[in-house]
């Protein structure tokens, strides 16, 4: 095994960096090595996770059953109202559809679903097979849209067309087609859209409440607890605030180009980034409302006064422990590095599935000497890094959890399976509690890794 591990490091050595050993040089954003047990997913996956939280839209997966089955309500994106997004709709393509084409089936499925559920819009996801058999998704959608009088949007998310990031792009293109049609006359000057928040565990509700307190109206949630009508009015907002690097940045850029909507990159994870994001937004609106900065400072102060004493309790026990991070998009990793620092913990490994060179450069700047930075990693590498660095807790997604546990390392899901909101000031406390609950668990006293000492 050890020789195997060294070989893959050879093949991928320019996708792995150790800070302090040579300068920054990262060859990322490239296709995965065939045969490597990559943790990456496909274009369809990217589109599906971005659009799925739009709760009053119909989400129809055009393809064989698997693509719909595996994405049936997996993300825990909460809705305060309709829940059409939590059902799984598929054209369930069969062999004869592959031979004769699936357009007719798609047309019938769409018609039937729209009649039964009266959705505000429909998203139709293309899968690998649709790209190959050449169904004209665009034409079917146009026909149904004309007949039923709702927007029917093709999402060009054939799995093989790249990785998740291309899927985010396809989702953005589909959403963008909704924009510009709604009535924006009632939108006040202090208004924004929240981009790149998916309302996992109810997070967007926390953020919206902060904006309320600052006196800013949220026009559209993109996409957590999202609504079609809000998306249609989104172009009327004064500002876009964009979280989650890959997912919705493209939409923000399109909106800027077409509607002139400026955007700010924000992050709601960790105290530092959360506060700075709110201040950034306040600064943006300061000319329109000079009082906003004062209100924002007050908000941050109130929240921090509540938070700090409780955070200290966790910090006392967590200080000096070591953390590893492997997430989908690199942007989240920045905030996590800072959040761990606030807890007195050291990040010794940080990586992502789809980070860009710019992302990794930034990570390189904010991490400590000796930190391993890795792009598109795999279980073998990750486990060898976890052992080498003697990590106490690993932050990752569903496929990483059992690897950490098998090694006897604590874990925190910062992805689809988070159960507590991790955004906002209260989210920092939840994060600390979750990290504490795993790092300090008595179970690690019994696992062989610790016993051996």
């Amino acid at each position, binding site marked *: 095994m050890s020789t195997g591990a060294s070989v893959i490091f050879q093949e991928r050595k320019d996708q792995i960096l150790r800070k302090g050993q040579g300068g920054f040089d990262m060859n990322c954003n490239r296709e995965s090595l065939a*045969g490597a047990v*990559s943790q990456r997913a496909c274009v369809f996956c990217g589109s599906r996770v971005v659009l799925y939280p739009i709760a009053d839209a119909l989400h129809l997966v055009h393809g064989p*059953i*698997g693509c719909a089955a595996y994405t049936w309500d997996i993300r825990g994106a909460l809705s305060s109202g309709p829940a059409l997004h939590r*059902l799984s709709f598929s054209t369930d393509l069969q062999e004869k559809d592959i031979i004769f084409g699936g357009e007719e089936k798609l047309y*019938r499925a769409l018609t039937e679903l729209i009649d039964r559920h009266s959705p505000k819009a429909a998203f139709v996801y293309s899968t690998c097979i649709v790209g190959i058999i050449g169904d004209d998704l665009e034409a079917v959608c146009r026909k149904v849209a004309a007949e039923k009088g709702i927007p029917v949007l093709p999402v060009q998310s054939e799995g*093989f067309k790249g990785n998740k990031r291309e899927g985010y792009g396809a989702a953005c293109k589909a959403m963008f087609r909704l924009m510009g049609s709604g009535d924006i006359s009632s939108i006040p000057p202090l208004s924004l859209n929240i981009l790149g928040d998916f309302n996992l565990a109810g997070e967007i509700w926390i953020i919206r409440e902060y904006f309320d307190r600052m006196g800013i109206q949220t026009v559209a949630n993109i996409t957590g607890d999202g609504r079609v009508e809000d998306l249609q009015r989104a172009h009327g907002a004064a500002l876009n605030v964009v979280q989650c690097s890959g997912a919705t940045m493209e939409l923000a850029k399109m909106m800027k180009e077409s509607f002139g909507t400026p955007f700010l990159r924000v992050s709601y994870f960790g105290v530092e980034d959360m506060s700075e994001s709110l201040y950034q937004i306040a600064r943006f609106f300061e000319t329109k409302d000079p009082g906003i900065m004062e209100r924002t400072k007050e908000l941050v102060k109130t929240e921090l006064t509540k938070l700090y004493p409780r955070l200290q309790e966790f910090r006392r026990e967590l200080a000096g422990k070591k953390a590893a991070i492997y997430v989908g998009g690199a942007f989240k990793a920045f905030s996590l590095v800072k959040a761990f620092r606030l807890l007195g913990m050291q990040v010794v490994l940080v990586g992502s599935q789809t980070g860009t060179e710019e992302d990794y450069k930034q990570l390189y700047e904010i991490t400590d000497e000796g930190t391993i930075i890795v792009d598109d990693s795999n279980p073998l590498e990750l486990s060898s890094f976890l052992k080498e660095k003697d990590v106490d807790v690993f932050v990752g997604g569903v*496929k990483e*959890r059992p690897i950490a546990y098998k090694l006897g390392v604590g874990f925190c899901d910062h992805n689809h399976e988070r159960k507590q909101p991790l955004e906002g000031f209260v989210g920092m406390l939840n994060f600390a509690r979750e990290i504490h609950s795993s790092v300090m668990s008595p179970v690690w006293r019994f696992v062989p890794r610790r016993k051996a000492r």
Partner: protein
Amino acid sequence: MLLRHTTKEIKERKALTVNPAKTCQPIGAMYAALGIHNCLPHSHGSQGCCAYHRSTLTRHYKEPVMAGTSSFTEGASVFGGQANLVQAIDTIFTVYDPDVIAVHTTCLSETIGEDIPQIAKKADADGKIPRGKFVIHANTPSYVGTHVTGFANMTKAMVDYFAESNGRKIDQINIIPGYVEPSDMEEIKRIVSELGIKSVMFPDTSNVLNRPQTGRFDMFPKGGVTVEALKSAGDSRATIALGRLASGPAARALDSKCKVSCEILDLPIGLAATDAFVDTLRKIGGVSVPESINTERGRMLDIITDMHQYFYGKKVGLVGDPDQLISLAEFLVSIDMWPVYIVTGTQGKKFESRIKEITRDVPHEVKVVSGGDMFLFHQWVKNEPVDLMMGNTYLKYISRDEDIPFVRFGFPILDRVGHSYFPTVGYRGGMRLLEKILDALLDRKDRDSAEESFELVL
């Protein structure tokens, strides 16, 4: 009401599946391949397929699930994925060093007409397959059959690629356990050895997907059937295949390839099906049933005796896979429960007629459908509720919305543990099923009893 969008009125649907009671072939093939020792399953398709299967299996088993992918890109989809697969084979043998790479196809690679044996031959000619190492394959297009078909196809591939006959019979029998949990496979092996019979079981995911905490991450865990054992299957005295759909094709292939006669039985879930399994073992092995097995049977029967009043006339709705549902329905009928709604997403002509035969004497209308979905099942329940539902985790929405007791059974179970450790096959598995059913029914009785009729002893 999470599923408030489910309408009570039932209309025939032809172009649409809502809330599927199935998934696609490749995941079944990946699960089966994990039951070979030192084997890396490999998905010949886009990266997403592999990621989804690994995620789903990981959620179900709470174990690391390793598999490679050809990582198809636009170019591969146009010019073919040969280069990707040859490169993958090279990478996998060099880096991970398994004994076997078990390739399954996807809708994408099937549609562009990939010829896996030809590609493997090319890889071999290029010296990418080390001596004594193997690349096997199964065709698993996602638009044909379901996860059960994929499992059956990969299990059959184990026969096609490995089983060989030297003409000299070995004193052992083959057991093909069906698409069951690692715990079930372990239990089946235990029963066979309790009868003093030597066996080869394939696939065998015990100690692969229910392994202990060791402080180590092993790419290839201890469990799984070895290549050597698979080769010897061609000289076994007989084959017992459990579950017609999942195990039948492999058993028949072994019969025609190596002339090993086979008995295809129902999955040993419940009293009668386990009796049939034990009896077949006894006859084929030429052994008598040991006291220990009789005791287990007696205990299971004792639970049924003690609690039979609580089963009487309870209406049950079932969603799952055909092999499981056939045995489960038969079991429920045998303890006086009424399986009234039975839905599987897997198409099969024989399934509906078999279920009708099993439920012939149930004094209630029985609705059964193969190729159905949970939306339809929910509509049935809305029209007339049941006392208990059994099926995979996705039934929890309906259980909650309609306030009906629910026992998790089948694949996938994403929100509970236990299924990978405690079997539902055999007599001991039957006892566990009975316990689960009784807990669900009696907890509900306790919850719903009025204060004046709430009893300490039920």
